[in-house]
Every structure is written in C-alpha cells, then in structure tokens.
C-alpha cells in the first residue's frame, strides 16, 4: 500500500517541525512537502497532489481559508484539515464554509490531530466535540455574519487582493505577486473599495482586521 501523502502549511518553522515529527511517527504516513504561506500551499498542492493538507489559517500573502477555497477547487481529491489558534464560533463556521473537512485547534491534543488526519485519509470529516458545539451554537446567527456578507460581495480574486492590500502592499506589488497588470490590480482595488463602501487604505485595513482577513 502506498504511503499517505501529507502537505504541511504554516508560516512558523517551529510549528511545521513539530507537525512533521508527529505525522511521520505514524506508520505509513509521509510529509511530502511544506509550505510557508497560503499561496505556497496552493502551488505545492497542485505540484504534489497530497492526500491531506494540514493548513494554518493565519498566514501571509493568502490566508488559510482563502487557500482552502482555491485548493478545494483545483485539487478536489485533497482533503483539507485546518489547524488554528482561533477559538471562536465564527471561525468554526468560516472553516466549514471554506470546504475544509477537518478543524483542529492548536491547543487540542496530538491525538486529535492524528485522529483528524486518519478520518480525512478515508474522506470522512473530523471535528472535535468542542468545534462541533461552536458550529452548532453559531448556526442561528449566520444570516448577519459580516464576514459572510463580505464573501458574498467580493470575488475570490478580490478577497486575495484585499488581504495583500491590508498587509501593506501597493497596487504595483499586488500586480507582481499575482502576475497581473498594474492597471488590473488598480481596477480590483477600486472595485473592492466601492463594494465595501470604504474610502481609504486605512479603512480597508480596519475592515480586513475586523473580518479576520488579516491579523491585527
């Protein structure tokens, strides 16, 4: 039987190191690659075609949730396990919406992570009881969730650009990162600001922080 291929995505080397040790202690599991950002994760998924990707939410360039959406679209066979230190009802719902089929808090035990990878390797979802409770608690309030409203208003590309702008990149730098023309990048910025009804980069940054697109 061939090894289960796992890709690890976290911007902290020390976390990737810990995860790699934990996963490779399990017989028949192999870490096929490591990614340091959401964009890197999307690229490596396409190259390496892992069975499971273990991905952090808070990462530069492209956060883990947006990366998950892109991965689920481009590599539907790859199961996504999100790990995070964000312990909130809203985040549990965000993770579910992104297409991830597993969600483990970084403060959960090693056993939870192993059980999650095991479940996903059989294409079964895995959520700890704490996460399930958070999700159920949040279901009633989804209609007015501001981050859901943002997702409905912005396209996937616009959400990517929102994160890059909120991280302090100029329209020219955004164009370079995404391989698009500066004029196109500028148009996206104008559209984002119009759709979100914000009128300055400072307001855009505040919006991105409030909606957890970037960390404060």
């Amino acid at each position, binding site marked *: 039987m061939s090894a289960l291929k796992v890709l690890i995505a976290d*911007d*902290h*080397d*020390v*976390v*990737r*190191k*810990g*995860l790699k*040790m*934990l996963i490779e202690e399990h017989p028949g599991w192999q870490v096929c690659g490591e990614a340091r950002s959401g964009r890197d994760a999307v690229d490596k998924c396409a190259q390496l075609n892992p069975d499971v990707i273990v991905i952090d939410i808070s990462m530069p360039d492209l956060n883990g949730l947006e990366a998950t959406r892109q991965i689920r679209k481009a590599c539907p066979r790859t199961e996504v396990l999100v*790990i995070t*230190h964000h312990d909130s009802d809203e985040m549990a719902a965000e993770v579910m919406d992104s297409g991830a089929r597993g969600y483990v808090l*970084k*403060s959960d*035990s*090693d056993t939870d*992570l192993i059980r999650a990878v095991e479940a996903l390797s059989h294409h079964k979802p895995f959520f700890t009881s704490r996460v399930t409770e958070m999700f159920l608690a949040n279901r009633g309030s989804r209609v007015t969730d501001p981050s859901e409203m943002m997702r409905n208003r912005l396209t996937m590309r616009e959400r990517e650009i929102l994160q890059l702008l909120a991280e302090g990149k100029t329209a020219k730098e955004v164009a370079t990162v995404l391989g698009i023309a500066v004029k196109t990048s500028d148009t996206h910025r104008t559209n984002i600001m119009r759709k979100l009804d914000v009128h300055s980069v400072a307001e855009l940054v505040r919006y991105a922080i409030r909606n957890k697109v970037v960390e404060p």
Partner: protein
Amino acid sequence: MASIRVLLSDDHSFVRRGLRTILEATEHYEICGEAGDGIQTLELATQLAPDILILDISMPPPNGLQVASQLRQLLPKTKILMITMHDSEEMLRAAAAVGASGYLLKSDAEELLLVALQRLEEDRCFVSPAFDPSLAERLFGQATP
C-alpha cells in the same frame, strides 16, 4: 559539559514538539519537563527549578507574563525566555517588566532558539532581531550582538 535543564511551556503541543526537536539535536540541553498551561508551568517550575524556562505568552490564564512575574520571585536563578508570535513593542516592554531575560519570536525559533539560549547561559539577554536594537538594549541590557 553539564547539560542545561530546560522546561518547555506552550499550550500548543506542535510547538512544544518542534522546540523539543531543536533542543534534542544537541546534547547540551536536557528537557526536564513540558507544561501546556500557566498553572502546570507554575507547578512544574517550582518542583523542577529548571536552569531555563521557555515560556509562551498567550496561554489560558495565567498567561506567560503572569507566570513569569510570579516565578521571578520564587525562582530568581531560573532564566526565562519568552517565546511568542507577538511582535509588538508593547509586549516586548511587558516581558522586560516581568523580568524575562529573552524575547524570541516564534517565526525566529528554528534559526535562533539555540543562539538565544546560549546568550541566557552567558548571563546576557536576547531579543529577536525584528525589534529596534537600541530599544531592546534599553529594555533588556546587552541584548544585541
């Protein structure tokens, strides 16, 4: 050379595992214990009196700053290296105020953990290079190379 006894404290098991892997690659450090929250850290630290405590700031209460503040009184010989993802000056000042000897960003841990520990062993301080060296020196003393 006698090994240096280190206590690891972080509520994220992956981080503890990563730190352990880095330390175990040398024979110089003995990991005498691991704690996953503030209360456990206080218990293990007072019981084990480690040479160095590697202490995360963001943990369920008491957080790392509160733990450091209490241990400073109880274990004056134990050096405390704060390890955190917070790169704010405010947090750096808070760590210095509670008597930590070092401040290491988690993003630097793989590359600089051993450098930081070496500094602490030499009775010097360590602050991650992302901070203004003159501020680090004002707060921690001889923090810069």
